[in-house]
């Protein structure tokens, strides 16, 4: 990717034709899943767009097994990904009996931090590419943290050499469900270490009796927040519309990227 700030989206195979017809609007694509073996569009997608590895590699709370490292290495090479992304998550129990199969953040403790740093070093050494870590919101209160999320992330980045993937919708949800002012919360995060910015939409979920991430356009409020944060990210290199779902409707990606470019002054 060039030094100019790149604006992109996630590759959604069911929208491949639309994506390929907007090469001027879309600078890069994040890959949440490996391409299907018979995806007729992927060869052209690979030719036209820089691709970012944004798959599930492994939770950094536990040692990364060799086959997971090898899978990540192969995908990073296939995409020639300038950096690889993981989530600040811990979703599978030790031994693997229980798996929530969805992003869920770790407890912010010294012990967990050491685990994350150790795994991040192994991962970066194996892939020989920079790592970015995306923060994950917590929906319900857990009083088991030893340090704040911001302290956890900053120490993780500064010690491991990885950098920050700031998801603005995740931040909005975290602030909402902890009753904090969103801008004050954002300032508690290591914004100076952000490489990539994600933005996304939210919808109401009956099970949650409130909003959560959804494959829809971000609201004007979310874009305003992204613009506010964007001005405070001195090292940001990419802005990505984070929506990957078979529910994502045609037209959503182009409209969102046009609005994003306009609001962030990246037209």
């Amino acid at each position, binding site marked *: 990717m060039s030094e100019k700030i790149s604006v992109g989206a996630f590759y959604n195979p069911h929208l491949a034709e639309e994506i390929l017809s907007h090469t001027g609007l879309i600078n890069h694509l994040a890959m949440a899943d490996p391409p299907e073996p018979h995806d007729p569009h992927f060869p052209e997608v690979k030719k036209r767009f820089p691709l970012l590895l944004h798959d599930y590699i492994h939770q950094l709370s536990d040692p990364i097994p060799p086959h997971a490292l090898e899978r990540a290495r192969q995908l990073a090479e296939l995409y020639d990904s300038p950096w690889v992304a993981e989530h600040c998550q811990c979703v*599978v129990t*030790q031994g*693997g009996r229980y798996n929530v199969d969805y992003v869920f953040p770790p407890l912010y403790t010294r012990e967990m931090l050491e685990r994350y740093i150790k795994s991040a070093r192994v991962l970066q050494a194996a892939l020989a590419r920079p790592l970015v870590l995306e923060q994950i919101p917590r929906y319900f209160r857990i009083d088991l943290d030893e340090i704040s999320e911001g302290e956890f992330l900053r120490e993780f980045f500064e010690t491991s050499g990885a950098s920050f993937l700031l998801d603005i919708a995740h931040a909005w949800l975290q602030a909402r469900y902890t009753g904090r002012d969103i801008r004050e919360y954002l300032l508690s995060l290591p914004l100076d270490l952000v490489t990539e910015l994600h933005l996304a939409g939210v919808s109401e979920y009956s099970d949650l009796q409130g909003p959560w991430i959804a494959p829809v356009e971000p609201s004007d409020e979310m874009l305003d927040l992204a613009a506010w944060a964007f001005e405070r990210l001195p090292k940001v290199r990419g802005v990505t519309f984070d929506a990957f779902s078979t529910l994502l409707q045609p037209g959503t990606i182009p409209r969102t990227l046009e609005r994003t470019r306009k609001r962030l002054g990246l037209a």
Partner: protein
Amino acid sequence: MNSRDAQDVILRLLADGPFRGAAMAPQAATALDAETASVLARVDLAGLERFGRFLCRHYYRERVVHYFKYSRALAPLTGRPPESALKTPEFKALMPQLVMGERASAERVVTLLRCFLTDDADAIRARIRYWDDLVAYQSAFFLSDAAAASRPASAGASVGPTVESAPRFPARAESVSYLELSYDLPAVLPLLLKPLEDIPAAVLKPTRLLLARSPHGEVTVIRCTDALKRLLDSLTGEVPAAEVAARLGVDPNAFERTLRQLEDVGAVVARESFSSSHTGSELPSPV
């Protein structure tokens, strides 16, 4: 308890509906082990319950969308998008009993899905004669995923038997299941995902499929001939490969190559290697 263990308690509370229900019951405080109780005392229980339900619905929706993709593609014709089953009162009532990734839970969900798709469905069958086969095929796939996830292994890690737990000689893997269909379904499956002008017809022909999980949890479906079934059923884990080949009257080298390929897709397990040279492919292409 360290924080990693505490995280595991929270993850189990989220993934295991009956465990969560029992932990949150009024009389639970005295029945819980001390570690679970100490975690639970520091968690917003109402929020935990809501998020557990959200995760449960999300978990099964993802799998219904993936494994019932053919029924989804046909939904404009049938009026029954399979994921709608997860919005019914019946599914809501089922959620507290479900453990994400557990086989028994997947069977309960698949029973609900089957009812949703096939009850009072004569009008659908009149247009799509292989409708019941299609639902059975997708259900088998859905269940294979659950069996994979219920294995004690980390996400993305090996889910097959460990080398230590595998039998010494080749054996049919526990994950193997057969599906007997009335129609030659594999021939029409790719057509169902293309824009439909007419509903593709399937040939009425008894068809047996073999479902197996690879060591990393990938489910493969292949056509299963009588010979392949005989071969798999002859693998008890107690007889060397060469001896099985002799009993079946097949070339031992070709037999070993076939075993290796079956091992790759998870249909065969063994602690000892079959042979030092394993090349070539004699298995039919996956469906």
